[in-house]
Every structure is written in C-alpha cells, then in structure tokens.
C-alpha cells in the first residue's frame, strides 16, 4: 500500500478539550501543527460534561487553592502526585479566566462574575463544609467549553484533519516518538504524520464497560497505541463509577444536580447518604456515594419492582431553579428515563464514567516511563493530556469538575512544553525508521484478509460484559482472578476479528475493529492491575481488604502507596513511587489520613 508522508512541527491526536487547548498554544506560537480527530471537534466527548470546572475563584464563598489541593489529594486517596496537584489547583483560576476571555458563556452571579456551585468532595477549610467551586454554564459546561475552545482555534487558524483515525505510534530505535500513522475515513488511505512532537489527547476508554456514561467514540485509542508501542499504562485499576447514570440507559446526570440541592433516596424514601457521609452527605466523593448506593441496593433497599436502583430527587427545588440551572438534565430525564424531574424523582444507578489512570506523564505533560533507574524519564517527543493521560492528579478517585480543569491545565502545559522544547532545540525532526508504517499496514492487511473470524460486535460485547462482571464498583478476589483469565481469552478472540465490509470509503466496520484493538489493551490493563493491587483505595475496593484498625478503609500505605505500571508485552507489572512532595518547597505535603466525608 502506498503511504503518503506529511511533516509537521507537532501533531496532536484528538480534538476534545485537551487537544484543542494544546492546539491553541501551538497555533498561537506559529508552529506548523496538525490536529487529527476521528470526529468533528465539537463532537468530542468533552461536549457531554455537565456540571462545571473547578477553580477557587471564590465568587460566592471564600476559597483558595490550598483548600482545593487538600480536597483533590484526599479525593485521590493519597495516590495523586502532589506536585501535579499543586500545579493544577494553582493554575485553575488562570485557565478558567482565559476561557471566559475566549467567550465561554458562563452563568453569572448578581455582580456579574462567573457563577459557581457546590460539588462532591470540594470543601472549605480542609473538609469542614461544602464550597461553591464549580464554574458552570447551566448544566452544559462541557458543551459551552468545547465550542468556545473550537471557536478560538478557528480564530487561530488551527489545521484540523477531521475524520482521520490515528492507527499507531511511531518510535525509532532510541525509543523516541516521531509521529503517528493515520487513516482517512473518506478514502481509506494511510498516511504517516511525521513530527518533532506528538501530543496524545485521545480521551478515555469508558466503553470497556457494559454500562457506561461514555460516548461510542471513547475507545482508548491513545492508550492502545501507546501500549502497543511499549509505553506502560499507569493506575489502570482505578475507574470512576459515577453515582448517577440514568437507570437502564447509562446517560449521565450531573453531580451538579446534588450541588443544587438534589437528594438520593432509597425505597423507603430515606436520605441514606446521611448514614454514610454525615458531613458532606450527598456531596461526598463519587466513589463513596457509588458504594453507598450499591450497598443500599445489595441490602434490599433499592427502588422499583426489582429493587435495582435508587432515586435522585429534586422535586423540592423550584421549577424556576430547575429550568435555569438544570435544563439539560430535565431534557435527559424526560428523554431517557421518561420522568419529568420537576414532578418525580429520577431512577439512577452507578455507571462507569472516567478512567483515573492512563499514559504516565509529569506535570508538564511530558510522557514518562522508567529508564536507567529513573522511574519518570521523559520519552523524547511524546506528550499527553486529558483523560488519556495520568499526571497523576486524580489518583484513586477523581473529584467532579477536576476533569475539565485537568484538560485545560495539562492541555495548555503540554502545548507550552512542546513550544519550549522546540525553541530550546531539544527536539528536531529525526529520520523515520524504514518500518514506520509496517505495524499499521500489517493490522489493516490482517483485517482485510481474515476469514472464518470473530464478529467485532460479539467480541466487544463479551469484553464489556466481562469487565462489568469482574471489575465493577465492588471487587472480589475470586472474580478478579477469573476476570484475568476471561479477558485474556477475549483478547485472543480479538486477534481474529473479521469484517464483511471491504469498502475503502467510510468503512465504519473497520474503524470499530481497530477501536476494539485499543479497548482490549485497556481492558487487559484494568483487570490485571486490579487483580494485583491487594488493598482497597479510592475507587478500587476489594472484599479481602476490609476496613480494619490496622488498615483504615482497607488502605495499606505500607505496601501499596505506589503507582501501578502495566506493560502490554507479557502483561508485565511494575510500580513506581507516589510523589508526596508538592512542587513548591514552601508548600506542605497533605499528610496521610483516613478518608471520611
């Protein structure tokens, strides 16, 4: 097959929030930049974020970045790296204000400032009381943000390659990254995007689970490409189950609903979160609320004929508040739950939502991996930001509104690092290896020629069911062990996928088969990392690591205060230390403590 070559200063894969924020940095610096995206930028999944973006602006309640940092470290169950967390929380006001200057239509306070609402796990004065930290545009913050960022890129003349699928990462014999291979949907033609710098902003892989708030496109493409190219994936056992997915449909209902006063109730109408989190109640951290809901259901207090969900009640709010602050939620409830929340509560259930782990990076957005005794050696030419990356700011559990902040801060910082590394002469255009496109071409040829193979749909379904059953909200030693065997079997089947569609033009069967290759890498990483971590921490809670005096909440800091690294080759696991020292010498680390809300 003929492979065209295109050359750029930088190539960005993905045009969601992180990719668009990084692209702005590069375009405005005058670098020749290509942004590859498999969907038109405003169709990226950032669009579905609802409740807000965190920043300690203090527009309605007193706030500062130290409190935000404390909440984030505590939320992460101390697995987050405190240098990256300090960096993010200190940068929050700057990147949110920038976004406002780009035209983002934030809601406003009476004095004209950005409107802020309370959100789960965010507090004043180190856990004392809820704080209004979430900067919101009604319940469409992600949509407003993604469009504002795209619009700013239109102004900056960013060059997009829309409806191109990146296939594989190109590395040379030194392990340096030289770009990606990609296929154009409309023609089926493969190109090499040769670049001095490559930024991955490919989003999450929530589609490994059967019940997910995620879009169809969230297939972990960047993680799959990185894993196939020998880059480890960090902390993949940590997945966030959002407390409030619409029962049956999986569609997200923002935590902002509880921020505006919504209450979770069980079958007897009880506000059960008062028992589990006496202080923050319904606004406790997401992992805590999800586990409480599942416990209610498991103990027979669930709602409905099968007692298999709980209710999110906002009927006590005024219709005006709902129409003004939560109009999108009302539409979603009517569409997908058949319920008008002004009149009746919404049936909800914890639903897979966000991947805390990802491609390991430092706070500058440089991808790092162990090399010559340095656990965090940058891989030359390779950067990542947003949900696909692990900085790590979310650790074992992400706080709501910190994902939109993450993609702004680290999208910008990855872009700045590229600009800096190019200007300082650290990065040049290294020659392409002769086999740069071979792996991609071999994958395509295998798919083209496969006969008597497996259906992509069937293998995908098996993967999603396996992940749902074996790596859900609560985890069990035996189920995890069986899950490892099961997912490895699914991975074998995925090597033999067959498609009937042989067209060159817009072949979505081929796209879905290639996406499945990426999902499978993420699924293996998740199951194997989860089986190996023999403690409970954040979103990873095991039956054989219960709450004891020696190990509060089942957390074992002596053995497990460390990041997991999973390598695709041989499913090898490695570990590296958590960074406890914040970025600034004069900032005190947040000391280890038992997590309660």
């Amino acid at each position, binding site marked *: 097959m003929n492979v065209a070559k295109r050359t750029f200063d930088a190539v960005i894969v993905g045009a969601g929030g992180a990719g668009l924020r990084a692209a702005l940095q590069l375009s405005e610096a005058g670098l020749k930049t290509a942004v590859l995206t498999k*969907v038109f930028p*405003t169709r990226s999944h950032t669009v579905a974020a609802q409740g807000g973006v965190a920043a300690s*602006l203090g527009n309605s309640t007193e706030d500062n970045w130290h409190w935000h940092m404390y909440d984030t470290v505590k939320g992460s169950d101390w697995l987050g790296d405190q240098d990256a967390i300090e960096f993010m929380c200190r940068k929050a006001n700057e990147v949110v204000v920038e976004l406002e200057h780009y035209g983002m239509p934030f809601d406003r306070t009476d004095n004209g400032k950005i409107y802020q609402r309370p959100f789960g796990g965010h507090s004043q004065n180190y856990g004392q009381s809820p704080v209004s930290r979430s900067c919101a545009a009604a319940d469409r913050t992600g*949509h407003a943000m993604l469009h504002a960022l795209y*619009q700013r890129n239109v102004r900056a003349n960013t060059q997009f390659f829309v409806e191109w699928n990146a296939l594989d990462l190109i590395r040379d014999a030194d392990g340096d990254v030289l770009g990606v291979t990609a296929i154009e949907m409309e023609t089926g033609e493969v190109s090499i995007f040769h670049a001095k710098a490559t930024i991955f902003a490919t989003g999450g892989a929530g589609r490994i689970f059967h019940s997910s708030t995620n879009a169809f496109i969230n297939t972990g493409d960047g993680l799959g490409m990185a894993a196939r190219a020998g880059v480890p994936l960090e902390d993949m056992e940590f997945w966030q189950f959002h407390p409030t997915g619409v029962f049956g449909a999986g*569609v997200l209902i923002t935590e902002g609903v509880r921020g505006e006063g919504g209450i979770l109730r069980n079958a007897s109408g009880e506000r059960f979160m008062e028992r589990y989190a006496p202080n923050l109640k319904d606004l406790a951290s997401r992992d805590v609320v999800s586990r409480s809901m599942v416990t209610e259901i498991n103990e027979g207090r669930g709602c409905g004929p099968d007692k298999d969900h709980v209710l999110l009640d906002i009927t006590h709010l005024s219709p005006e508040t709902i129409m003004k602050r939560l109009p999108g939620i009302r539409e979603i409830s009517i569409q997908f739950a058949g319920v008008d929340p002004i009149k009746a509560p919404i049936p909800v259930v914890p639903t897979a939502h966000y991947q805390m782990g990802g491609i390991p990076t430092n706070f500058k957005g440089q991808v790092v991996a162990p090399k010559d005794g340095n656990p965090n050696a940058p891989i030359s030419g390779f950067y990542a930001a947003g949900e696909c990356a692990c900085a790590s700011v979310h650790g074992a559990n992400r706080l709501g509104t910190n994902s939109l902040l993450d993609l702004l801060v680290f999208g910008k910082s990855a872009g700045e690092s590229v600009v800096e590394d190019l200007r300082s002469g650290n990065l040049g255009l290294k020659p392409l290896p002769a086999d740069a496109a071979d792996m991609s071409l071999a994958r395509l040829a295998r798919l083209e020629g496969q006969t008597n193979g497996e259906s992509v749909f069937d293998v995908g379904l098996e993967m999603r069911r396996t992940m749902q059953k074996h790596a859900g909200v609560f985890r069990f030693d035996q189920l995890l062990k069986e899950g490892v065997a099961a997912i490895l079997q699914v991975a074998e089947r995925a090597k033999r996928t067959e498609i009937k569609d042989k067209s060159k*033009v817009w072949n979505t*069967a081929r796209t879905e088969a290639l996406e499945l290759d990426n999902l499978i890498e993420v699924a293996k990483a998740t199951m194997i990392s989860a089986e190996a971590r023999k403690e409970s921490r954040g979103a990873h809670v095991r039956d054989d690591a219960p709450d004891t005096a020696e190990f509060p909440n089942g957390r074992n800091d002596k053995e497990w205060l460390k990041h997991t690294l999973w390598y695709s080759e041989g499913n090898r696991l490695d570990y590296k230390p958590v960074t406890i020292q914040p970025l600034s010498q004069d900032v005190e680390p947040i000391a280890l403590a038992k997590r309660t809300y």
Partner: protein
Amino acid sequence: MSKRTVNFKMYRYDPDKDEKPYMQDISVELEPSDKKLLDALVRLKSVDDTLSFRRSCREGVCGSDAMNINGKNGLACLTDIDSLPQPIVLRPLPGLPVIRDLIVDMTQFFKQYHSIKPYLVNNEPAPERERLQSPEDREELNGLYECILCACCSTSCPSFWWNPDKFVGPAGLLAAYRFLADTRDEATTERLDNLEDPYRLFRCHSIMNCVDVCPKSLNPTRAIGKIKDMMVARAV
C-alpha cells in the same frame, strides 16, 4: 417489552461498489432495551456491518447522528423507535453531497459556520479576572449558544438547498447572532457588514423549517429576525 421487529426503507450507497444509490428494504429484531432509533441502527449494524452512519454521544449533545427520518430531519439518538410509523424511511440529510449511506459531506455547512467568524472578538487588553456580564445580559445568550451543529436546520431549509454557497443558513446565522448578542463582543459593525448582502442573511424567508426540526428546540428564525432588526436600526 417483548422482542419486536422494525422494518426500514434505507438509503444505501457505497461509491466503491454501487453505481448509484438505492433504497433497501431491511428489518431487524430489537432487544427490549432498544428504545431509540440509534439503538435500532446499532442493532442493524451488528447484523450487517456495511451500514454506515455517524454516531457518538447517543444523548443529543454531539450532533453526529442527524438524518432524515420519515421525511423529517432529526437525531437518531433522540427519536423513540416505537413512535415511528413503519417502514421507517431513512435518508441522509438532504441538500448535501452523500459520501456513503447516511453519511453526508458537511464541508459546505461548516464553511458557512466559519464564514460568520464564530468567535468572540474583544481587542481590549484582557483583564486579570473575568469580564463582568450581568445575569440579564448573559440570559440573552440562552437559546443561542446551545447549538450542536448537527445541521438538521440548514439541510431542511430550501434557501440553503438552492444557495448553499451564498446563504449562510440557519445554523450559521444563529451563531452570528450568538456573538452579536454577547455584551463582551466588540465586532458588531464588522459582523453586520459581513451579512449585508442579498444572499448571506436576506435569503431567509421565515418559512421556519429550521425551528420545526431543531432537536434542541432552538429558534434560528427568531435570531435571524433580530439580526434583520439590527440591520434596519443601523440604516436609519
């Protein structure tokens, strides 16, 4: 709900093998959990992987799965399958070149969107903090900023069908008014100049197909009327 079968008349075209488009009679058995038209299309694709359509968020915010459903433009993910008379006639959005099956080439649509300079213009030095805007001024943007660029409106508009290269179309004009209405934007004169032309704005004859089909219940016709009012106001 028990298993049920739905029947389609589906527009099919693969330029790699078909000389011309054709309508295919095709049916699929649904699972009880399949509620929306998009669920049925995904089910259908699990049987025939050659069926091609765009989709992503499946909750009506990304704008990918706009199509012509029984003669009316809409989003597959927000359309209840059981509400549709059968056979369900599915075609690509009208007026744009078809690439394959239900996938259209949206270049012209986005070109018009880009032509209105869809970004905030404010050349004052950026303040340290946010620019202030009163809640009342912010409310002016409601009904404008929520557009998802699905193109249901512009591809249901006869003026856009006849002059897709000259008439901005309802989606682009809605975006134009979103910036005209923003108290933070300083480019009012340039924006109005940009639309002062026999085609770009004035080909809208207020037949309101756009309002009828918008899956987000937005009203491009009203926004266009407001731009026309601004044109008149500055002429006198």
